[in-house]
Structures are given as structure tokens and as C-alpha cells.
């Protein structure tokens, strides 16, 4: 029994070590950073590093931009996925199966082959360095449609028929019955989309210009590395600020996250 806990704790320490060391380093005064052997805990925590990263590193702006970008993408994916999944699950029309396969095929097309043309499209629409350019290509999700269709299909037929007898049109059924019943999957999709959008790197990198108008926190972190070469502690403080919201998300929404990530793993 004790051996089990020992094994688990060792595993946990290894996983947490990089992040722990980062927090320690972010609280050290600058000269102490190069101290050998390295400090395993900060003797005199320097919380000022965090305010330096926040203000001087423009982190508050970057976090705001990331929040806006992520919110748009999450809402967009939820709306388009709910509409499409409802259609696939409850409505009948010719080529329904083919169209569903079309939706699924988007999962097979990786980002790198669409990158070049998307950059051209966004630029010619005048959306370079704007929230539109950051978010519009990602407003739909094949995976989201798949996940929600699955959930909608599990709603018993009798319920649908009873609702129809009560005079529920499609809109009412969708908003008052189907979506609330599919809430676990909707929540899972929301968390999954949030994570994906917040952590995007390559696309914001190519679509963001040379100012802070829409720069997200991921790109902002990269800049911190360039600007504050000597102030490693400030950079690390910035890193901790950037990851803290997500860790909170994980702790609160662990169940939803696991649900969405394992949608294909368990038969």
C-alpha cells in the first residue's frame, strides 16, 4: 500500500517538476538565478516579478486578446456544431449521410495544407491582424458536430414524438429539450474548444502583425523571451500567469475535458 503511494508520488513529482521549478525561478531575484546548485525553493519570494510581467510585458493586453479570440471561437464552434448536429440527428434530407462524411473529412485535413491559402484569403479580405482573421477560419468543428450528433442520437424517440404532439417546433425542441439533455457533451465540447483556441500558436503567429492589437498570450510569451533576455524570472512569471487560467480550468472541468478527449478511445 505504502509502495503504491510512493510510486504515485514519484510520478507526480516528475510530472510537476518542470512547472514547480518555473514557479520557484519566477520568485527568485535575478542574480540568484544563476546560482549553482539551483535553488529548490525561493528563500525570499519576489512577487514584484509578477507585476513586472503583467504591466511591462503587456500580459494584461495579451490575456485580454486571448480571451476575446477564445470566446469567439468557442461560441462559434458551439453554435455551428449544435445546428449541424441537430440537423444530422433529427432531420431527414437527401444526401444526409454523404454530407456527414464531408463534415468528418475535415478532421483528416491538417492545418499545414490550408495555411498558405488561408493566409492569402484572410489578407485579401482585409482581416490581417484582426480578431476576424484570428477566429473566422475556426468557427466550425467537424469533431464538435460528431460529438453532439452522438449525444442527440441518444435522446429517445418517444421524447421527440411527445414534444411534437405538444406542439414543439424544431427551434423549441432544440433549445428546450435537445441541448439541455445533451449538456454533458456540449460542456465537453466547450472545454475542448477552449483549450484548442487558447493554445493556438502557428495561426496567430502568421496572422498577427507587429503590434499588440490582437496579439494573443502565446505569441506574447514568445516576445517575452526576445525582450527580456536577462530577466528570466520575469519571463517565467509571465509563463505562470499564462498557464494559471488553464490549470484552473482543468481542476474545475476535468470531467468534461476527459469526456471530449476520449470520444474516440473507448468503444
Amino acid at each position, binding site marked *: 500500500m505504502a509502495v*503504491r503511494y510512493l510510486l504515485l508520488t514519484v510520478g*507526480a513529482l516528475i*510530472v510537476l517538476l*518542470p*512547472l514547480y521549478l*518555473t514557479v520557484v*525561478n519566477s520568485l527568485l531575484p535575478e542574480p540568484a538565478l544563476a546560482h549553482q546548485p*539551483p535553488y529548490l525553493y525561493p528563500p525570499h519570494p519576489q512577487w514584484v516579478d509578477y507585476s513586472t510581467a503583467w504591466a511591462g510585458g503587456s500580459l494584461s493586453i495579451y490575456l485580454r486578446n486571448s480571451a476575446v479570440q477564445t470566446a469567439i471561437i468557442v461560441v462559434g464552434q458551439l453554435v*455551428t456544431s449544435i*445546428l*449541424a448536429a441537430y440537423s444530422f440527428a433529427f*432531420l*431527414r*434530407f*437527401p444526401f*444526409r449521410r454523404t*454530407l456527414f462524411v*464531408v*463534415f468528418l473529412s*475535415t478532421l*483528416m*485535413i*491538417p492545418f*499545414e*495544407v*490550408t495555411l*498558405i*491559402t*488561408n493566409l492569402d484569403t484572410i489578407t485579401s479580405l482585409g482581416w490581417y491582424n484582426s480578431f476576424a482573421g484570428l477566429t*473566422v*477560419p*475556426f*468557427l*466550425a468543428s*467537424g469533431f464538435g458536430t460528431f460529438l453532439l450528433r452522438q449525444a442527440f442520437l441518444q435522446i429517445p424517440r418517444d421524447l421527440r414524438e411527445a414534444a411534437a404532439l405538444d406542439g414543439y417546433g*424544431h427551434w423549441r425542441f432544440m433549445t428546450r429539450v435537445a441541448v439541455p439533455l445533451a449538456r454533458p457533451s456540449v460542456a465537453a465540447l466547450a472545454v475542448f474548444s477552449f*483549450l484548442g483556441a487558447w*493554445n493556438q*500558436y*502557428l495561426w496567430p*503567429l*502568421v496572422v498577427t502583425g507587429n503590434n499588440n492589437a490582437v496579439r494573443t498570450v*502565446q505569441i506574447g*510569451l514568445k516576445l517575452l*523571451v526576445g525582450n527580456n533576455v536577462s530577466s*528570466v524570472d520575469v*519571463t*517565467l512569471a509571465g*509563463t505562470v500567469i*499564462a*498557464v494559471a487560467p*488553464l490549470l484552473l480550468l*482543468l481542476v474545475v472541468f*476535468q470531467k468534461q475535458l*476527459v469526456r471530449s*478527449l*476520449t470520444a*474516440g*478511445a*473507448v468503444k
Partner: protein
Amino acid sequence: MSPEGIVSRRPRRVQEALLGYLLLVPALLVFGVFVFYPFLRNFKLALYQTPPFPGLPSHYVGLHQVGEVLTSSNFLQSLLTTILFVVMVVPAGLLLGLFLAVAAHRHLRGIAVYRIIFSSTVVSSVAVAALVFGTLMNPVVGFLPWLGINPHPPILENTTWALPAVAVMATWQFLGLSFIIMSAGLSSIPEEVLEAAKVDGATSWSAFWRVTVPLLSPTLFFGVVVATIYAFQTFGQIDILIGSQNAAYEHVNVLIYNVYTTLQINGNPGRAAVLSIALFLLTLTLTLLQLRFLERRVSYGI
């Protein structure tokens, strides 16, 4: 069924179909413009050679550019680097995830805390992971000298060790997802099966290999596919940690990074398009191969 009933059904069916299509329009619009059109145009781009100076029209060279890029030493080295990277990350990431999942698959007090810790790396973004490890591996402020690891030149500029260093970081980052996937797989194995095996006299070790692993094979298979795609997409960490100006650049120039630098830094979309198609075909082939080969060895159900 009265005649009125039958007559009023047909317009309703048309109405339903129209609504069906209408609800698909938002998503299809996004997919059409930002997924399918770029995908097809990419093939066209690959056939046009970009002029050396911007402003000049690019001219059609057909498959000549494709051939030229695919036989270039830049591409071949990129390919080799990518394969090396995938080989380093996928087995390690999956095995470690499995190990952690098995360790945490117990009804012990406080196990939920361990589970959250083990899944935590799934929320680390590319930039965060890169900065965290960049600091750890920094020759001045990092922890490697303390462990006695002191390569010259420093590890992130070292032509031999830069790629393994990035692989270590990518594996760590993948651990969270790997743990979550493996845990889900373990949860789907009914307790009774393991009980039955133990009753039949199997030891823990052989029960694990003879019973658990085969039952886990759909999950392992899913994990391999996810891990491979993940490894092929590793880009941001390389960009932040190493970058294109670095001495070790050539040795960490995986295909996706090559696409980025060819497009943005060298300004050569024609060549970048060819590289991106090569990467896409490589990923697709590997995934399909895994689907055929591994799925045959997967044992579903009991």
C-alpha cells in the same frame, strides 16, 4: 389515413429537408472557404514556381517543382528529422502514459489529486511548455549543470542533442493526454475479467500482459494514432526554443517547421505547398497503415 393527411405530408418533407440543409450552411460555409478550397488550391500552388522577387508573376512548372523539392537535401533531411522525432516521442509518451494510468487506476484515498496532476500537462500550451523547458535547459540558469549534463555547445544549440531535448519536452507535454486516454481505456475493462483471471491463477504481472493489454488494444491503437499526429504537428516549441537563426536549426527542422520557414521567412509559397503536401501524405499514409495493420491485431470485446 385520410387523403388530406397524405397530401399535407409532402410539403412538410420538403420543408424538413430545406431546414436540414439550412442548419448545415454556417458550418459548410466555414469549411468550404477555409478547409476544402485551401486544400485543393494547395495542390495548384505546388505546381507554380514562386519568382525570386515579389511582384513578378509565378509561372507554371508543373511537376518539375514537386520533383525538385522532393529530391532536395533540405527536404530529405527534414523528413529524416521528422521520422526520428516521431520515433522518439510516440513510444515514450504512450508507455509513460500507460504506466501512470495503471498506477493511478486504484481506489485509493486521494487518488483524484494524483489523477489531476497526471493529466495537468494537457493544458500546457506550446509557448508555456517551451518557456518552461527552455529555462530548465538554459546553460546558465538551468538545472542541467546540476545534474552533471554540460554539453558544448549548450543543449539547445547542439546539433546532436537539440532534437532529443525537444523530444523530451514534447513527450512531457503529451503525457497528460496519454494518461487521460489510457485511463479511459483501463476504465472500460470490466473488473470481472481481471477477477476471473486471478481466480484462474494468473499473477498480477501475467494478468496484466495476457488480459489487460489485449483488452486495452483499441485504446492503445487510438493512442498511437493520436500520438503520431501530435508528433507531426509539433511546431511552436521548436520555434520558441530554437528558431530558424539557431545553429542547430538544420537538425530540428521537422517538416512542419520547414513549411513555416519556407513560407514566412523564405517567402516561397510554391515550395512550401509541396512540403505541406508531402507532410499531409506522410501523415495520411501512416494513419491508414496503422488503421489496416494495427486494427487487425486489435481484439475487440471478450
